[in-house]
């Protein structure tokens, strides 16, 4: 029994071997006669290295992550999925307002009820950072993992398993960062017979400035919502004028301007001259979305051409002509074009006979890619998506009349990293265990 107990103890140590007290830091000897400043820097560096390689930091980060996940989950009730994600996980710090919203929700489990926070309370509430956010905890954990790995483990065959486990964990963390930064979800809505070569992100708008002068093709300059919200003035090499963003409403309603309206119309040109626009609180429910609007002024080097109200409510492009070229302005869900199109042939909604219980939803589409000549039929149904050119098309929803389909389009370049990292961690654990097993059996044989 004793050897087994020793082995378990030694296994524990292999992951975090103590630093031999006699081992001096390599540079310390050389610095013994150096200036006080250099010595101070050296000791600061040592403190930093000790901090980032400490196992305590790992434990603290994991504990903080646990708390963050708990409150981040609580906050999804009052704030909705997207806002909670943004405030808790896609941030370096959680500020006071979203944390308070989550705490109030958590108290409900103890039957203590307070007035729940709204999205507006959080968006316009206190920005005081009160807790580390997902990026900070994940980032520190990543640095901690890499730093302690390189400090404690030399590359030896006997440590190959540990290397693999750590590489797998690092890949997992980086893969999630990659997913966070690079993945994109959009929707493709097709009626039967219709073909489209773009999908749309419903929750993000873009201002498309379209030069329609060429009779063959339109040139589109697509300005994403983020830019509209953060910029006062937008210039681009492809635009012979500057766009001044006079107002941006993340959620709004647009109505006809009544004949007796006394306030000024939101814009001087187009629909805006006879409409009113109202700023609305942002919605948090999953089944609703914001309808953004903006007031945009077109300024040429000579003069301003006026202001236009653009809104997702106004689905017809508004035109103007300048310098013999015709332009259109339209605020629409952000589009993602592909070099191929999908055409819906038939949407099928099968039910179990004699009931209304859905059995299967499927869309028969034609994939047409002119540049390669590829043209084939594909059947997309539940749990059997179409994976093509880095996009995955899932059967997501359908039109009420059963003649239209909605495909969810997921673009995630790092979708394979969790699989790779799990295999790597699993294999690493096996290798490490096998290494010890071999060593242990050898020892037993010699004993």
């Amino acid at each position, binding site marked *: 029994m004793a050897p087994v107990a020793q082995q378990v103890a030694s296994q524990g140590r292999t992951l975090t071997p103590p630093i031999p007290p006699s081992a001096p830091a390599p540079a310390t000897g050389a610095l013994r006669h150096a200036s006080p400043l250099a010595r101070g820097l050296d000791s600061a560096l040592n403190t930093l290295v000790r901090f980032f390689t400490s196992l305590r930091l790992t434990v603290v980060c994991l504990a903080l992550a646990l708390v963050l996940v708990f409150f981040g989950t609580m906050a999804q009730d009052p704030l909705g999925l997207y806002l909670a994600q943004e405030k808790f996980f896609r941030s370096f710090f959680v500020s006071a307002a979203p944390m308070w919203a989550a705490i109030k929700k958590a108290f409900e489990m103890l039957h203590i009820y307070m007035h729940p926070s709204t999205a507006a309370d959080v968006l316009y509430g206190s920005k005081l950072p009160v807790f580390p956010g997902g990026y900070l905890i994940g980032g520190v954990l990543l640095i901690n993992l890499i730093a302690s790995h390189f400090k404690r483990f030399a590359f030896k065959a006997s440590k190959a398993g540990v290397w693999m486990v750590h*590489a797998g964990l*690092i890949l997992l963390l980086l893969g999630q960062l990659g997913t966070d930064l690079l993945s994109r979800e959009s929707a493709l809505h097709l009626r039967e017979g219709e073909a489209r070569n773009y999908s749309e992100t419903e929750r993000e708008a873009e201002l498309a400035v379209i030069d329609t002068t060429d009779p*063959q*093709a339109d040139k589109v300059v697509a300005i994403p919502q983020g830019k509209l919200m953060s910029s006062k003035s937008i210039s681009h090499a492809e635009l012979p004028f500057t766009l001044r963003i006079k107002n941006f409403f993340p959620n709004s309603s647009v109505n006809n301007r009544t004949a007796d309206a006394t306030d000024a119309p939101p814009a001087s040109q187009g629909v805006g001259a006879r409409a009113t626009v109202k700023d609305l609180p942002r919605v948090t429910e999953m089944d609703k979305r914001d309808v953004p609007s903006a007031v945009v002024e077109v300024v040429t080097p000579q003069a301003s051409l006026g202001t236009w109200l653009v809104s997702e409510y106004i689905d017809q492009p508004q*035109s103007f002509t300048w310098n013999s070229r015709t332009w259109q302005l339209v605020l629409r869900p952000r589009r993602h*074009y592909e070099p191929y199109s999908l055409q819906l042939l038939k949407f099928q909604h099968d039910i179990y006979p004699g009931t209304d219980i859905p059995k299967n939803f499927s869309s028969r589409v034609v994939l047409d890619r002119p540049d390669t000549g590829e043209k084939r039929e594909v059947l997309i149904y539940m749990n059997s998506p179409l994976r093509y050119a880095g996009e995955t098309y899932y059967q997501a929803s359908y039109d009420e009349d059963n003649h239209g389909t909605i495909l969810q389009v997921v673009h995630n*370049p790092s979708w394979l990293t969790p699989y790779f990292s799990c295999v790597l961690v699993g294999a690493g654990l096996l290798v490490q265990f096998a290494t010890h097993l071999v060593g242990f059996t050898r020892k037993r044989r010699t004993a």
Partner: protein
Amino acid sequence: MHNPLAFAPESSYTHSVIVLSCRASKPGVTPWALALCIGVFAGCGRNDIQVYRVAKAQEAGLPSALPQGHPDISAGTGSPTLKYKVPSGWQEVAPGEMRAASFRVAGRNGKQADVSVIPLPGMAGSDLDNVNRWRGQVGVKSVSSEELTKLAQPVEVDHQSAQLYEQAGESPGSGDKTRILAAIARRDGTTWFLKMTGDDALVAEQKPAFIEFLQSVTLPSATAQMGLPASHPPIDVGSQLPPSHPPIGGAGMEAQNAPAASSGQDKPNWQVPSGWQETPGGQFLVAKFLIRGAGDAQAAINVSMSAGDGGGLLANLNRWRGQLGLAPVAGADLSKQVQPLDVPGSQATLADIAGTDARTGQKARLLAAVVPQGQQTWFYKLMGDEQVVEQQKEAFTKFVQTVKYP
């Protein structure tokens, strides 16, 4: 149908390179190579402006991509009752956005002129503002209101008098000699702009034909007034999805089985008091009722619904006060202006205001009830002749209190 060939990015996506580099990295590659990606991620500009070319959408060949029940948006359906005689040499073209009618006139040497007929609700700005805007378009200086009266030339539009304004100059954008002939006619709360713009000499030559065209026009009746572009789908006052909009987000069965988002225009269940006559209320009202009193006296009830708080009580109260020619009140005085109204399951508010109707100049009274219901707010407004409103006050409050919401 869209031509899929049409997509050709002119400036490459900055992140596509990174996407490829991440795709190429295999798990066996040292983590440092991956760590390098972090540095490059900063360049993955989701907020970058993209430029690309797409083939013109040939909508005519496309099966309708509009939601089910969406009105037809094909051109030309917006002005069913606008009638006119097309002068010789004018080519009628699809009216397009905002226009009720549109023509092209070709002159010599490729010179062109464009004729438009645009209806706008209300006053659509004063004549002075409009004329000065047109003057700006041909690069001549603005005029004062005294000078404006001298510029106005009387013409006939639909057998009624209207003003014609003529301005000529050089277009500030292109430097071309340009002339604008524009007539403004006001009918039944709608302002009609009939305008010819184009090459200076051509427009001057076409002036008699334009005046002849103005005389031939028959403007539509009040019921056919247009607000948003012709055949624009009804605008939902809330922030919910438009009617028949496909569900978004959740791909689960629940989302699939859920009915399409409510249009917000569904009428609640209510008992209409006797003497209230329901009339078409327009696209932003859930319902409208008319009540006739003695003689010409009348009052109207407007019922509307808005997502959220509909702009808040104070803003709405001040809007109503504006309709009665009263100055706005400050937030601190709000509680003095309104009283709570007992509505089951809601904290409703009633405002009672008297003043002078800004549109008619007659003395008027306004009773408005604001009823929050979940994520929506319902507005009930009774406005009209003071005596009619007083007689109907009880029926109105009872009506508001007994509405059953969907």
